[in-house]
């Protein structure tokens, strides 16, 4: 969705921090509730919270957890993972638009493409892999984006004189069809959406950098990519490479596992639990500050995966974030700001509205 937008993210001096609330280090038990955990992240000064949807025992649906956090928070963006392969694009689009409503425009979407035989078996499909995954993701993102645009912003008119609640000319059929070379079973989606346009117009869509680029999800289908490297040292270089590949209009977010010295326990003693091939920082708060400061010079944001939510969040909020703010490395959180604002994205007009206006002008 970068066509009409100025690429602000890469030029902005200060970056943002996201926190994965329930990755490998989920210990929600330290918080009385999910709402409390998100509030702790918000008051620590994190700009975004993400919610994993990997099939882990005991973990509730990511989008619903994000929705639960919506009314409890004011500034933090809420960004769930939602699979694109074994889910219904129409449902996904409506659910995400609804998340935007319950969070006051702070919703985003990490579009994942599950290479999961379990996911396939659960819905009676054959397993999708390789390039077909990116095709499924691209199609699902496109369906969502068309449906979000299918109500123009001012479609609800409530015009008592004519008795019209909506202006039908401002509703549009999405008319999506999978392309002829689509690897999976072909499908179409009619539209319009059943919910008015999300507050942000379009939710920011994030995806793993490994899914985006040539022959995969086109870079202009996403707003931000999540970049992984095997070590902290390689991360900044990888961010630079990815940025060159995806172009300036896509925000780049570096992924970092974090284990800090905490409550007299050395980080190294606790660093065993993380995995996923991500760069890991284990050490003191001071060391992390320096690493983050330098990473934020390359990346628009960094997503932290704490080893233990309770322990790391405590250290991060007491030591790391205040110092980074003091050094000017972090954007100030904006109360009631949107996730698009955070990413430096303007609010796009509906593609259908723009088309209708152009057709009108040509008359």
């Amino acid at each position: 969705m970068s066509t009409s937008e100025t690429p602000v993210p890469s030029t902005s001096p200060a970056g943002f921090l996201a926190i994965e609330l329930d990755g490998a280090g989920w210990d929600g038990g330290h918080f009385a509730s999910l709402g409390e955990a998100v509030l702790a992240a918000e008051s620590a000064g994190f700009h975004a919270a993400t919610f994993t949807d990997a099939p882990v025992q005991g973990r509730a649906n990511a989008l619903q957890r994000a929705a639960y956090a919506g009314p409890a928070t004011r500034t933090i963006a809420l960004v769930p993972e939602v699979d694109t392969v074994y889910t219904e694009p129409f449902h996904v689009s409506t659910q995400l638009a609804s998340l935007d409503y319950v969070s006051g425009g702070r919703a985003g979407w990490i579009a994942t493409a599950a290479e999961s035989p379990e996911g396939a078996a659960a819905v009676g499909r054959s397993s999708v892999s390789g390039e077909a995954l990116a095709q499924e993701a691209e199609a699902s993102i496109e369906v969502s984006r068309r449906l979000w645009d299918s109500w123009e912003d001012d479609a609800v008119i409530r015009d008592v004189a004519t008795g019209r609640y909506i202006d039908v000319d401002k509703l549009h059929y999405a008319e999506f069809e999978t392309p002829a070379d689509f690897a999976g079973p072909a499908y179409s989606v009619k539209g319009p959406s059943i919910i008015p346009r999300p507050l942000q117009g379009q939710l920011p869509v994030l995806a793993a950098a490994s899914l985006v680029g040539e022959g995969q999800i086109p870079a202009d289908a996403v707003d931000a990519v999540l970049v992984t490297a095997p070590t902290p040292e390689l991360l900044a270089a990888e961010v630079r490479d990815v940025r060159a590949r995806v172009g300036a209009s896509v925000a780049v977010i570096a992924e970092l596992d974090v284990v800090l010295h905490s409550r007299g326990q050395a980080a190294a003693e606790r660093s065993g639990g993380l995995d996923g091939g991500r760069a890991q920082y284990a050490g003191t708060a001071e060391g992390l500050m320096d690493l983050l400061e330098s990473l934020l010079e390359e990346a628009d944001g960094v997503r932290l995966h704490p080893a233990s939510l309770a322990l790391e969040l405590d250290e991060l909020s007491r030591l790391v974030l205040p110092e980074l703010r003091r050094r000017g490395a972090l954007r100030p959180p904006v109360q009631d700001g949107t996730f698009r604002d955070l990413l430096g994205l303007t609010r796009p007009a509906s593609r259908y509205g723009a088309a209708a206006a152009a057709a009108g002008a040509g008359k």
Partner: protein
Amino acid sequence: MTQHNRAKSGVFTPTGKIQFGIFFQGVNSGTIWKAAESGSQTDFESFRRLAQTAERGLFAAFFLGEGLRLREHLGRPHALDVVGRPDAQTMLAALASVTKKIGLVATQNTTYNDPADLAHRLASLDLISGGRAAWNIVTTDNAWTGANFRRGGYLDHADRYKHAEAFVETAKRIWDSWETPSGPARQVLHEGQHYTVDVTPRLPRSAQYRPVLFQAGDSPGGRDFAARQADVIFSAHPKFDDAVEFRKDLVERSLAAGRGANAVQIMPASEFILAATAAEALEKKEWVRSLQIGPQQAVAYLEQFWGRELSEYDPDGPLPEIDPVVEETSETRGSGFHGAKARQLADQWRAEAKDKGLSIRQFVSSRTARVDATFTGSYTAVADQLAEYTRVGAVDGFNISPWLVPTGLDDIVNHLVPELQERGVYPTEYAGSTLRENLGLETPVRS
């Protein structure tokens, strides 16, 4: 009689209590948008306000409806009524964080969902809300709705309850699969005509064991399905005699299904128009009706069945003398419009309107305003009327559709609920913290 014996008993026994639910519709002409007091239908604040008011009034449940394609009118989206509603479970998950006791009921159909996915998401809502989730099972079946989904219109109308039953059985097995509260889960396999499911469930049982099941649908097949599977039926029979009749019918079906006479509760859809006095309530009703069905809505309603524009007809004049151009009404106006023969219907309606001397507007208002589902009167008179329902156990509760959002429950909670409490027929506190406890339902037996 203890709760346990009551549910198992072969004889129906009234509880002497009623419960309220709120049904936030999101479509149709019932919700007024033209009044100055009418707020947003999509802003979360509207949902929060209604849910918190309902909870203040000790309502058992907050319901959200579902529709998966915008209703159309002569081939384009219908412009005149409230439309555009958020996803039920997403909204309810958000409401879970701003409420404590009220049940959260998501209407979700069995055709355009996958059983494992829906069961998992409902279990999520149940865990997130501390055991307050419920599923209002509906059975949308048409290709017109299917146009928004990967599977398209694959299911015959005749098969929809067969399919729904296999779907619900699978969901129940998914929720039942945990050996102990902390696991491990048993693998659930289902191989059906339309779905194959092979899943190892991930979520443990909630505080209420599993989501409460509501069913909405009225055909014999729908009632039998509810009698076999549901905890509560969201019925369309609120009028007293009709409600008593429906209770009898459902008790028979429950017994035939091998369940107790009290196993399935009944909560009909309803509308309340109340004031301090009877005269004021009648005046209010006139006002409500005029805003629900304006001249444009009245004509548009007929156009649905006539299959052509009727804008040349005076809304305050008689019904059109010309014949409809469609043989069958379509699905495009929503689930209430199944397959009535249009010409036959037009003849009937013309005769009825002529008989009663009704204009287009008056006639349509009488058809759409849920006349049968409306309680109009003073707070005390309506409270007396409802107390009478509890005497014979005609219903277990009412599912109220407010005609105004978000203030539409204020007078019910502020005035009607206290009257009912005084009469001893309405709860004075929540019985527990789960929906199952608050409805007085038994913990299900593991299947």
